[in-house]
C-alpha cells in the first residue's frame, strides 16, 4: 500500500474534484465534506510517506508500471516528504478555514466549481512535489496555476484583473519552464530527473544547457515570486478571497522554491550551480536586494494583507539567500525556511482573513483596540509576527540561524547585514500593527471605568476559522522546538552529498 502513496496523494484530490463537481450540483451540502475527506486522507498519506522515507529511504513509483525513463516516475525523498507534509497539513487546515470564509467573501460559494478548483489546486501542489519527471512537473504546475488564476479571480473588486496579470506572468513563467524542459530533452533524450542528472555532466559546457538552466530559474522564479519577478504577487494575493490567499500565499511560493532547489541540486549537480555557472553569486545579489526592497515596500503599506504579501516576497528572498550561500548550512536554512515559512505565513494570512471577516476591513489604521474584540486572533497574529521577526523558540528564528551561519561560512557579509536588517524592518512593520491592536485606544471608545471591567469577548469568528488558526500557531511553536530533530533526521539527508560545508 505504501508504495502507491506517492500517486495516491495526487490522484485522490483529482478524483474528488470531479466528484464534487457532479455531486455538488445534486446536493449543495455535499461540497464541503467532499473537500474535507480527500484533504484529511492526503494528510494521513503524507505522514505515512514521511515515516516510510525516514526509516526506509526514498519511495519510487512508476506510473502504469512503465519503467523510467520511458514512463513517468514519482520519487519522494526526504526533501519532498517534508514539503509534502507541510502542503498537506496546511491544505487541510485551510479547507476547514474556507468553509465559513468562502461563505462570507465569495459570491459563488454555493457553486461546486469553487471547491473543485480548490481540490485541483492541491492536486497540482502535491504533484509538483511528488513527481520526478520534468514534463509531468510542467503539467502539474499548469494545473495548479490555472486553478490559482480562477480562484483568485473570485475575490473582491479588482481581483479579476489581478488574476489576469497573474495569468500573463504565470504563463510566461510556465512557457520558460517548458522551453527549458524542451532543451533538456533535446540534449539528453530523457525527461526523468534522475536519468537526466546522470546524463548531464558530460554536457555541462554546452551553451544550450546554460540557456535551459536559465529558463528553468526564470520559470520557477516567477512562480516563486522572487524579486524582480514578483510584481503579480501583491495584487493577486491581496484581492483574492482570504481562504485562497491563505492557501496560495504560503504554499505556491514555497513549492516554487522546492522546484528551484530540485533543479539546481538534483537535476543539475551542485558543482554546476556553484562552479561551472556561478549562479549562486548572482542569486545572492538578487536575494539580498529582493529582501530589502520587499521589506521597504512592506513598510509603506496601509493594507494589512498587502503588507503580508510583501513579507512573502522578502521571505522568498531568504530562501534564495540560503541557496546562494552554497554550503550545507545555507541550504539547510533554505529548506528549513521553506517549511517554517509555510506555517508562519499561513498563520498570518489566516489571522488577516479572520480580521477581515469580523471587522470588514484590511486597513491597519482601522484596527485600533483590536485585542478587545478579537483577542484570539490578535494573539495568533502576535505569535506569527514574532516568528517572522525571529524570536526563539519560535520556528522563524531557527531558519534564520542556519541562513546566518551559512552566510558567515561563505563570507558574504552583505547577506549577513541583509538578514539582520530585514529582521529589524520586520519588527517595525509588525509592531506597527501590534501597537494598533493592543496599545492605541479608539477615539470614541470609552476608557474602562474605575472598576476596569471589560467583559472578555471572544472573536465573533466561527470556530471553523478559529481552530485552524490556533493549530497553525501551535504548529509554529512545535516546529520551533523540534527544529533540531527536523534538521538532524530529515534535512541532513535531504541535502545533496556533493555540497561541502
Amino acid at each position, binding site marked *: 500500500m505504501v508504495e502507491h502513496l506517492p500517486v495516491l496523494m495526487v490522484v485522490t484530490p483529482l478524483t474528488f474534484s470531479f466528484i464534487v463537481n457532479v455531486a455538488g450540483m445534486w446536493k449543495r451540502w455535499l461540497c464541503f465534506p467532499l473537500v474535507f475527506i480527500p484533504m484529511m486522507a492526503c494528510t494521513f498519506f503524507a505522514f505515512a510517506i514521511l515515516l516510510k522515507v525516514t526509516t526506509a529511504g526514498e519511495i519510487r513509483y512508476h506510473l502504469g508500471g512503465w519503467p523510467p525513463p520511458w514512463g513517468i516516475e514519482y520519487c519522494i525523498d526526504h526533501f519532498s516528504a517534508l514539503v509534502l507534509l507541510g502542503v498537506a497539513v496546511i491544505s487541510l487546515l485551510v479547507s476547514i478555514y474556507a468553509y465559513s470564509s468562502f461563505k462570507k467573501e465569495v459570491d459563488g460559494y454555493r457553486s461546486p466549481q469553487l471547491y473543485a478548483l480548490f481540490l485541483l489546486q492541491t492536486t497540482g501542489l502535491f504533484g509538483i512535489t511528488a513527481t520526478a519527471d520534468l514534463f509531468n512537473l510542467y503539467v502539474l504546475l499548469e494545473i495548479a496555476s490555472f486553478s490559482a488564476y480562477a480562484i483568485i479571480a473570485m475575490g473582491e473588486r479588482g481581483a479579476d484583473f489581478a488574476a489576469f496579470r497573474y495569468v500573463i506572468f504565470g504563463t510566461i513563467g510556465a512557457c520558460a519552464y517548458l522551453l527549458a524542459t524542451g532543451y533538456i530533452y533535446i540534449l539528453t533524450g530523457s525527461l526523468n530527473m534522475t536519468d537526466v542528472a546522470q546524463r548531464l555532466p558530460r554536457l555541462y559546457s554546452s551553451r544550450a544547457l546554460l540557456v535551459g538552466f536559465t529558463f528553468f530559474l526564470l520559470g520557477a522564479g516567477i512562480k516563486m515570486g522572487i524579486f524582480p519577478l514578483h510584481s503579480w504577487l501583491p495584487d493577486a494575493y491581496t484581492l483574492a478571497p482570504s481562504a485562497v490567499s491563505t492557501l496560495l500565499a504560503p504554499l505556491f511560493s514555497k513549492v516554487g522554491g522546492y522546484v528551484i532547489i530540485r533543479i539546481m541540486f538534483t537535476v543539475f549537480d551542485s558543482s554546476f550551480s556553484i562552479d561551472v555557472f556561478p549562479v549562486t553569486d548572482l542569486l545572492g545579489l538578487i536575494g539580498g536586494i529582493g529582501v530589502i526592497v520587499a521589506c521597504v515596500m512592506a513598510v509603506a503599506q496601509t493594507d494589512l494583507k498587502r503588507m503580508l504579501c510583501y513579507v512573502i516576497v522578502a521571505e522568498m528572498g531568504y530562501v534564495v539567500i540560503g541557496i546562494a550561500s552554497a554550503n550545507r548550512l545555507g541550504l539547510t536554512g533554505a529548506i528549513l525556511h521553506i517549511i517554517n515559512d509555510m506555517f508562519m505565513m499561513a498563520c498570518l494570512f489566516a489571522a488577516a482573513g479572520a480580521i477581515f471577516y469580523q471587522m470588514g476591513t484590511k486597513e491597519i489604521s482601522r484596527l485600533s483596540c483590536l485585542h478587545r474584540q478579537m483577542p484570539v486572533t490578535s494573539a495568533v497574529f502576535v505569535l506569527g509576527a514574532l516568528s517572522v521577526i525571529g*524570536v*526563539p523558540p519560535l520556528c522563524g528564528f531557527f531558519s534564520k540561524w542556519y541562513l546566518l551561519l551559512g552566510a558567515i561560512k561563505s563570507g558574504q557579509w552583505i547577506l549577513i547585514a541583509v538578514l539582520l536588517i530585514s529582521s529589524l524592518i520586520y519588527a517595525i512593520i509588525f509592531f506597527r500593527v501590534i*501597537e494598533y491592536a493592543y*496599545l492605541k*485606544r479608539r477615539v470614541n471608545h470609552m476608557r474602562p471605568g474605575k472598576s476596569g471591567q471589560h467583559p472578555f469577548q471572544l472573536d465573533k469568528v466561527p470556530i471553523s476559522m478559529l481552530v485552524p488558526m490556533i493549530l497553525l500557531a501551535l504548529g509554529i511553536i512545535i516546529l520551533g522546538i523540534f527544529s533540531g530533530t527536523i534538521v538532524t533526521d530529515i534535512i541532513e539527508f535531504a541535502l545533496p552529498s556533493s555540497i561541502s560545508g
Partner: protein
Amino acid sequence: MKMETVQAATPMLALLPSLLGAILILITGQRRANLREFWTIAASVAKFSLICSMLPPILQGQIVEYTFVNICKGIALQLRVDSFGMIFAVLSSFLWIVVSIYSIGYMRTLKEHAQTRYFFCFSIALFGATGTALAGNLFTLYMFYEILTLATFPLVAHEETAEAIRAGRKYLAYLLSGAAFILFAMGLTYNLTGTLDFAPGGYIDSHGSKIILSVLFAAFIIGFGTKAAIIPLHEWLPSAMIAPAPVSALLHAVAVVKAGVFCCLRVLLYIFGPDLLKELSLSLVLAYVASFTLIVANIIALTQDNLKRRLAFSTINNLSIILLGASILSPQGIKGAMLHIPFHGFMKITLFMCAGAIYAKAHLENISEMDGIGRKMPFTMAAFAIASAGIAGIPPLAGFISKWYLCLGAVEAHQVFFLVIFLSSALLDAAYLFPIVYSAFFKKGKRPKFDEAPPLLLWPIIITAVFSLLFGIFPDAFIHLFQLATHSVVTIFGG
C-alpha cells in the same frame, strides 16, 4: 577547584512559576483581582524558594544543569546554574516578591488601567530575567534576553499616551537593534568555535585572528551594551521612565539593565576570558568607554529635574561602574563588580520605589516641587536618604562594600586613572542625591494635602532599605552574595 556538574530539574522548575503564574493571571483577569494578585505573590515566592534551594550545591562548588532539547549540532536549549548566575537569579527573584507587593499597592492607589496585562507582562519579564541568569549557553541566553525585551515593551508603553507609545518604540528600536548585533556575534562565535557554551576564564582564544576577535568583541558589546545603557546606546532608558514606577524600579533598575550588564560580564569573563582580553587590549577600550559613560551620566543627572530621570542617569552611571570594574580584569575588581550588581539593585530599587510612592501619593514628579516632603512622608524619605548614602558609597551601607572592592581592583591593576574615576563618581553621586534629601527635610514646602505612603507601598521600601544597610554590615547574609561572588572570581581565574 573541582567543579562537578549535577543534572537536576530544579533550574527548569525555577523558571516555571513565572510562566504558569502569567497564564493564571491572564485567565483570572480583572474580575477577580484579588485572586490574580495572589497568583503573582505565590509565583514570586515559589520562584525565590526554588532558586534558593539551589544555593547549597552551588556554594559547594557544583553546577546544576538541565538540558531541554537539542537545537543544532553543539547547541542545546540548556540551563546551567553557576555561582555568577545565582547572584542575578537570587537578586531578581527576591526583588520580584518585594516589587509585587509594591505593584499591587501602586496600581490600586492610582486605580490604573490594564492591570491584568501589567501583571501578565511583569511575570513573563521575570521569566525572561531568570532564564537569562540560569542560561547555560549563548543561545538560551539570547532566547530569554529577547523574551525579556518583548515582555517589558507593553510595560513601558503602559500609559498608552502618545509619549508612552513613542517611548515604547524607542525602547524596541534600541533593544532589538542590539539583539541583531548579538545574533551576528553568536553566529560568528559558532562559526569560529562550533559551540556557544560558557566556560569560566574563556575559551575562544586561538580560534580566530586578532581582527576577527576584535570585531566579535565589538559586536557583543554593542549588542549587550544597549541593554547595559552604555553611552551612546543609552537613550532608551531615560525615555522608558514614563513607565509606571514599579516597572522602573524592578525592570529598569534591576532586571533588564542588570541582564545587559550580566551578559556583558558573561562575554568578558566566560567567553573571552581575562587573559585574551589583556592580550588584545580590548578590555581597555571598554574601560574607557565605561568611564566616559560613568562621568557623563552623572553630570547629566545633575541637570535633571524629573526625579525618575535623574535616577535613570544614576542607573546608567552604576551600570558602567560594573562594566568598568569588570574590564579592569583584576580579581578584586571583578568581585566588586559582581557584588555591585545586587547591592546597587537593592539601593536603586529603594530610590525608585520612593519616587513612585511620592508620585502615587502627592502626584509630584519634579524635584523642585519636593521641598519639605520629608515632613509629610518621613519614612519614605528616610529610606531615600539611606539608599542615597549607599549609592554614594558611604559605610556602613552596601554600596560601600562593592565600591571598596572596585577601588581595590583598580589599585591591584595599577590603574590610578580608574581609581580617580571611581572616586569622582562617588562625589558626583552625593552631589545629585543629597540635595534631594536636604530639601525634603530641611526646606519648607507648600502645604499640599497628603500624608505618608500606604503600607503596601511603604513596607517594600523599608524592606529594601534595611537590606541595603544589612548587606553593608553582613555582605554574606541570607543569600550569600559575597560567597557567590568570591567563588565566581576564583573559578574565572582558574583556582
